[in-house]
């Protein structure tokens, strides 16, 4: 009766301050070391202590791109966890709870098992501190699913090594105690996921890490930011690597300063970026136009969260697309990338800087909380460092600068709109650019004909760039009756929904856009049959953008704006509804 499943989900819940995410990520690491595929995501409140937080890790023997809704094993570090999540537990699933907490006064589900274990007491006895029950309960989980605890031990050894052998030993004792405590329940728990010894090594990371690593590989050497969830971990990651890789990182007084400093650095010739979220981006808007007007390469990483205003600080949404597309007064070219996976986030990291320098204009990478913070495993070669190209565009070399004749024209009229750029500091290329409309030298100029030509020169860059934008990823059969359209982090849930529809005999496919603006060429031919936009916002902003750019009106929109990520099940439920309703 205990047939092994190839896909199960474990959720740990409790209050902020209980170490759910750190232990959850550690457990995920152990699973990956054990040859399993994982997708983990944290759901937490904007507070340091209290509230209700949970971390969900899905594990499988095949690659995963998304979380799913059903939970097989619920690890409850408080009663609230049981109260909130008991409905998500599958029949035959189980709840592990701390004996000292007991169970809330809600009806017990007859199809779910409840395992009472003295988690705090055992953690205290084995490790010297009840707080270590987060580690202990994952060891219980490993025991229940027959996952070799040696992998958890190896992660604990590595992660606690810098705290000394005493801390490592305490953690190892806690893990052993957890495994032991699971034994009486093992036969009652029907779901198994044994490790795959000798599986090829895989990596675990989230979108923020992937993007930061890609940016570093792409030559980013200046990062200025102001703390804001969920974008600032990119600044933290860069600061952690700043010394080794020669990156200047600063935490500054506000996001206005953050982008202005990055623009200054870009103007001086260094690949620079400012990571933030929507609120911080709002402050950056005027500076974005400065970069556009003065043709300065700069990258903004905007990890979206639900707005407007403070919104839901620690949750996810795709509500900023049209804002970043139109932000700042006037018209200027900008490039927008919206990676959907950690692999695409890594690529966006280096591609953004190439676009910024090739077109001498701001590039915005749109991420969101779901992509930025969810962890997934990839093969080492999926972070394709070999494919990284550092293309600085029309940047004058030292030899070219030496042979310049006459006064240098920084904003020279060209067919492509791109003017050969000199990094300031060479005696033959002394210039001053201006946020005022300017002539080819950069001098302030209000002449109408100059304005007409200079503005058109800048805007032409957008058309030149369009040819370089990648078409959407097409996933699914060409003759699909249903074409789902997604952008950014919706990739994973939608991909899985399409797989499940295919299993049910529905010919469905996904068009996923990671290069958003300028809208890639030739998209029109892909927009055929029944088209359904799937977006994490209220209005279907990308569907509107597509209509603006292509004239195509999508047939349906599946939208979500409750701050929680779109799941495959959510798409399937709403697809049925969309198909039924004319």
């Amino acid at each position, binding site marked *: 009766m205990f047939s092994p499943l190839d896909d199960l989900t474990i959720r740990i819940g409790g209050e902020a301050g209980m170490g759910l995410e750190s232990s959850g990520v550690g457990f995920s690491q152990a699973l990956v070391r054990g040859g399993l595929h994982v997708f983990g995501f944290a759901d937490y409140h904007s507070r340091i202590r209290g509230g209700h937080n949970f971390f969900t890790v899905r594990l499988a023997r095949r690659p995963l791109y998304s979380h799913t809704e059903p939970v097989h094993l619920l690890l409850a570090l408080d009663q609230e966890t049981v109260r909130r999540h008991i409905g998500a537990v599958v029949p035959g699933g189980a709840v592990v709870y701390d004996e000292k907490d007991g169970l809330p006064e809600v009806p017990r589900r007859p199809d779910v098992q409840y395992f009472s274990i003295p988690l705090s007491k055992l953690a205290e006895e084995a490790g010297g501190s009840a707080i270590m029950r987060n580690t202990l309960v994952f060891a219980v989980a490993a025991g229940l699913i027959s996952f070799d605890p040696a992998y958890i031990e190896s992660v604990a050894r590595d992660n606690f090594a810098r705290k000394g052998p005493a801390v490592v030993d305490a953690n190892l004792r806690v893990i052993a105690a957890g495994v032991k405590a699971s034994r009486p329940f093992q036969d009652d728990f029907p779901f198994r996921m044994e490790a795959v010894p000798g599986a090829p090594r895989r990596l675990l990371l989230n979108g923020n890490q992937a993007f930061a690593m890609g940016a570093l590989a792409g030559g980013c050497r200046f990062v200025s930011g102001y703390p804001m969830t969920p974008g600032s971990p990119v600044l933290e990651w860069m600061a952690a690597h700043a010394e080794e890789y020669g990156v200047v990182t600063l935490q500054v007084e506000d996001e206005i*300063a953050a982008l202005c400093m990055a623009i200054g650095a870009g103007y001086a010739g260094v690949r620079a970026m400012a990571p933030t979220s929507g609120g911080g981006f709002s402050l950056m808007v005027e500076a974005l136009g400065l970069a556009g007007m003065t043709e300065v390469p700069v990258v903004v990483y905007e990890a979206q969260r639900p707005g407007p205003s403070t919104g839901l600080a620690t949750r996810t949404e795709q509500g900023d697309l049209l804002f970043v597309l139109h932000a700042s007064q006037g018209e200027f070219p900008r490039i927008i990338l919206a990676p959907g996976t950690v692999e695409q986030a890594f690529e966006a990291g280096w591609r953004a800087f190439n676009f910024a320098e090739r077109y001498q204009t701001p590039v915005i990478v749109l991420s969101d909380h779901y992509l930025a913070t969810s962890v997934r495993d990839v093969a080492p070669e999926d972070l394709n460092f070999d494919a990284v190209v550092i293309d600085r565009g029309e940047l004058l070399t030292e030899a070219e600068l030496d042979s310049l004749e006459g006064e240098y024209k920084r904003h020279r009229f060209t067919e492509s709109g791109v003017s050969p750029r000199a990094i300031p*500091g060479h005696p033959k290329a*002394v210039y001053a*650019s201006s946020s005022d409309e300017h002539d080819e030298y950069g*001098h302030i100029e209000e002449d109408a004909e100059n304005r007409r030509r200079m503005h058109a020169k800048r805007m032409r860059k957008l058309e030149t760039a369009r040819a370089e934008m990648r078409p959407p990823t097409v996933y699914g059969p060409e003759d699909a009756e249903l074409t789902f359209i997604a952008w950014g982090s919706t990739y994973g849930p939608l991909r899985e929904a399409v797989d499940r529809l295919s299993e049910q005999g529905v010919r469905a496919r996904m068009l996923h856009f990671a290069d958003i603006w300028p809208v890639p060429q030739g998209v029109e031919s892909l927009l055929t049959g029944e088209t359904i936009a799937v977006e994490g916002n209220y209005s279907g902003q990308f569907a509107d953008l597509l209509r603006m750019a292509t004239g195509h009106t999508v047939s349906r929109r599946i939208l979500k704006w409750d701050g929680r990520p779109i799941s495959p099940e959510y798409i399937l439920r709403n697809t049925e509804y969309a198909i039924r309703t004319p």
Partner: protein
Amino acid sequence: MVTVDDFASPVRPTWCTGCGNFAIWNAVKRALAQVGLAPHQVMIVGGIGCGSKLPDYTRANGYMTLHGRTVPVATGIRLANHGLRVICTHGDGDAYAEGLGHMLHAARRNIGLVDIIQDNRIYGLTKGQYSPTSDRGRVTKTSPWGAFELPVNPIALALAAGATFVARSWSGDLNHLTETIVRALGHRGYALVDIFQPCVTFNRQNSYDYYRPRVYKLQDDPTYDVTDKMAAFARALEWGDRIPIGVFYQVEDRPAYEEQVPALRAGPLAPRPLEKLRPEQIRRLLEELV
């Protein structure tokens, strides 16, 4: 040898005849020539305002940015290439209204900028509104009842924020102006140079004739100690019939921000070749994710 003529731009200033900006412009060029900095070795950053157009009238690396954001843009430039001597030239509205926060943070950061404020105590380019340094009671188009606010005290603010060089000069004394800027150019960290700059069109009160009898030079007193912060604060509060100019405060014992950044130990960032990560570096990065 660098001369003042090296900085001659084909663009003629649009400033009014008699504008205090002419003296500041000349003093900047003279000071640069005096310390031997050529046009390609400096970067003059302006914001928006009459004085902020100074880079357009000067043949040197320059950047005319946004109102109030002169200092953060200049900070980014300095950190990207500290081989360039970075100078800000912007007005009192730019520096002390929209940009006041940035000024205080630049001071506590001690970033190596010479921050020249063309302080005419009025908004000129927008035609005569009161500014953060206008006197209380000042009647303008936007303060018909007289300004209710007190003027900011940039000298005291900079001192309080931890600035390591705080000076004031005025457009009526080109030599003092030049000397002060020369001294600021020799400072390792953040240097604030607030300059009284008469606006002959929109501020008839704070004219050359207003300042001439009032200003006196701190450095005329040989006992004045520029490293004494309390003395500097006392002079910063002196206002009215006698107004001190010169260097209020200067200490060289605090490292500039850029001197402390590990990535900059190997020299300026911008001129370094940009290369792909080495296999060893990639291996180490991936090792973190196992």
